[in-house]
């Protein structure tokens, strides 16, 4: 499989606080990577560096052969179209209904025709099981429903990779399943995904690789079966013993 994202010597500091310390990794096309690790270890920052919502302090991000850390704002906008992102707090636009949340970027960024955008948004809502909620406003939906709309919204731009930052952490437990189901379907359809998560069941079942992050490094990585059965580093052992 060809490389989709290459991360080379990535570093990120906020003032004196160095959050990411020299990360070099590769994500291959079609892979599902689950990033796990303790709170404050830099997982969100890492994910946000990948689509340059956070500008790396040093190192390179190479997405399908193109280097991202030194390009213009306009090129960056173009690249972000191809990388979908889903946030812990959904971040739906409360001033428009569900279908317009999904259609907004295709209409304004891709300049799709209205009809085409509506049709596609309808399909995506169907795919996440929310076809009947198209005309509702986000704040009238449950958390699980909002997060599924957010996934549909990201998919509407036809991204080549999807970044998830703890998509189920803000949800009531009974809603976690419906979101994970959508993500699992997406993984099975061949989407490249990088998922920061605390859902170990999902990681075990869906991930091709687990990246264990702590103190700004990827301390350990491996196939889920092996990682969960036999963590090699003491940090990973300690982390797993706490959460399992």
């Amino acid at each position: 499989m060809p490389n989709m994202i290459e991360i080379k010597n990535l570093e990120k500091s906020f003032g004196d606080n160095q959050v990411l310390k020299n990360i070099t990794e590769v994500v291959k096309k079609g892979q599902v990577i689950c990033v796990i690790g303790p709170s404050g270890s830099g997982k969100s920052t890492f994910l946000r560096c990948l689509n340059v919502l956070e500008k790396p302090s040093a190192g390179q991000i190479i997405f399908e052969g193109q280097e991202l850390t030194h390009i213009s704002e306009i090129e960056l906008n173009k690249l972000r179209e191809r990388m979908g992102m889903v946030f812990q707090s959904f971040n739906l636009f409360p001033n428009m209904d569900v279908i317009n949340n999904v259609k907004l970027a295709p209409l304004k960024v891709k300049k799709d025709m209205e009809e085409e955008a509506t049709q596609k948004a309808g399909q995506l809502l169907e795919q996440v099981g929310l076809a009947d909620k198209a005309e509702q406003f986000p704040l009238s939906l449950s958390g699980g429903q909002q997060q599924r709309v957010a996934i549909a919204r990201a998919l509407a731009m036809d991204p080549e990779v999807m970044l998830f930052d703890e998509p189920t952490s803000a949800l009531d437990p009974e809603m976690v399943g419906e979101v994970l189901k959508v993500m699992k379907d997406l993984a099975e359809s061949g989407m490249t995904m990088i998922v920061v998560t605390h859902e170990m069941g999902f990681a075990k079942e869906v991930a091709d690789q687990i990246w264990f992050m702590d103190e700004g490094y990827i301390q350990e990585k491996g196939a889920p079966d092996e990682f969960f059965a036999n963590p090699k580093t003491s940090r990973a052992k300690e982390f797993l013993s706490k959460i399992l």
Partner: protein
Amino acid sequence: MKSKKIWITLVILIMMLLVPLGKVNAASDGYLQKIKDKGTLVVGTSADYPPYEFTVKQSGKTTYVGLDIEIAKKFAKDLGVKLEIKNMNFDSLLVALETHKVDAVISGMNPTPERQKSVDFSNVYYRGKQYMLINKKDAALYKNIHSFKNKTIGAQAGSLQYDLVKKQMKNNQIKGLAKLNDLVIALESGKVNAVAMEEATAKAFAQNNTSLKVINPEFNVDSSQTGSAMAFPKGATSLVQAANKTIAQIKKKNLINKQYIPLAGKYMTNNSKKNSMWNYWTYFAKGIEHTLIITVVSVFFGFILGVLLALLRLSKSKLGKVIATAYIEFVRGTPLMVQVMFVYFGIGAVIQSLPALLAGIIAVSLNSAAYVAEVIRSGIESIPAGQTEAARSLGMSQTLTYRYVIIPQALKNIWPALGNEFITLIKESSIVSIIGVGDLMYQMQLVQSATYKGVIPIFITMVIYFVMTFGLSKVLGYFEGRMKHA
């Protein structure tokens, strides 16, 4: 050698610019010719000073009358031009003259040496005594300037009387107000014990208000300082000469005593006969119209400019940030009244034809923009960062993000604050009355001086302002409710 020649030429040129041409040759100062060319003589006055100048309503229209106005009419006629009267605060008259907003000032003005430093005066056309107006019930107490130990005396700010009180009644408090009407109200309500004013004016007030009485307090008046004269821009010798010719004719025929004062007296009694407020509803209607025009236009431009300032302040451009911040802080740190005067007299000095209404609108818009900018900025900053991140992660540019995600949400949040600003403007715009814009506040002053009634016009004006602001807040509340449902 050559450079020396250039220097000499330069010096001569500069001297020619510095020396007012009128001093060299009276006929060629150009002032008189300019007025004849444009066909109109613009005269500034402060029309709250009967019998010199005041307003009456003639077939529904506000007309300026009084002995000064008659003189101005004759002067214009002698010049063969039309007369245009500009009404403003007494304090503003000389500034208006210096900044060429008016060609001449005739407003019962005394040619004091201080004033002569900044303007040129005609010969004195009328000399009255300096009187005082007191409450009738105090008639036994107050006889002359020495019977007012530790009392408060009112006088029009910037007037000769103010000066006299200050210099000759050192044991007294002095209260200076811009409008005689306000001083008379202060007298009636006991805020001041007497108001110093010119003889004819004092008599006019007493004649129309039975609770008041005039006394001659026997100020020690230097005759060179009393009397009324017309004022002209410094160096306008051709105008002064022309005015003196007119004044000489008036004096020869004794027109002031024989015609002008009796005529003014007739207007005054007419005024006081029909001084029911109902006769003046057109004044208030005009005032409401102007107040609304100023407010609506200023809200519109203030909003547009405010959005631009807010975006500039939030932009990445350092220079833009500094400019916007400096503007906002400066405007919020200075009184609207000063800004209004600065626009009218300052910018008006560069653009001569800037009408007072436009100047008022510009000043209020510029002022409002600063406040609106801050409201919008806080509205934008109140939108969670996640909204921007979500939009940017979809490939939306900064501009698209603002346009479709941030601004619509921010507007919804700040709608009440913007509505408040609108309501505030209705009230604050009353300040423009000082430059003679015919808003509600200004019309109120006209009605006061026309009817000799102080409090009732204030009360009516207050009620009108309240109805406007309350009505508007209801309308805004209705839309706010609808936006919440959207």
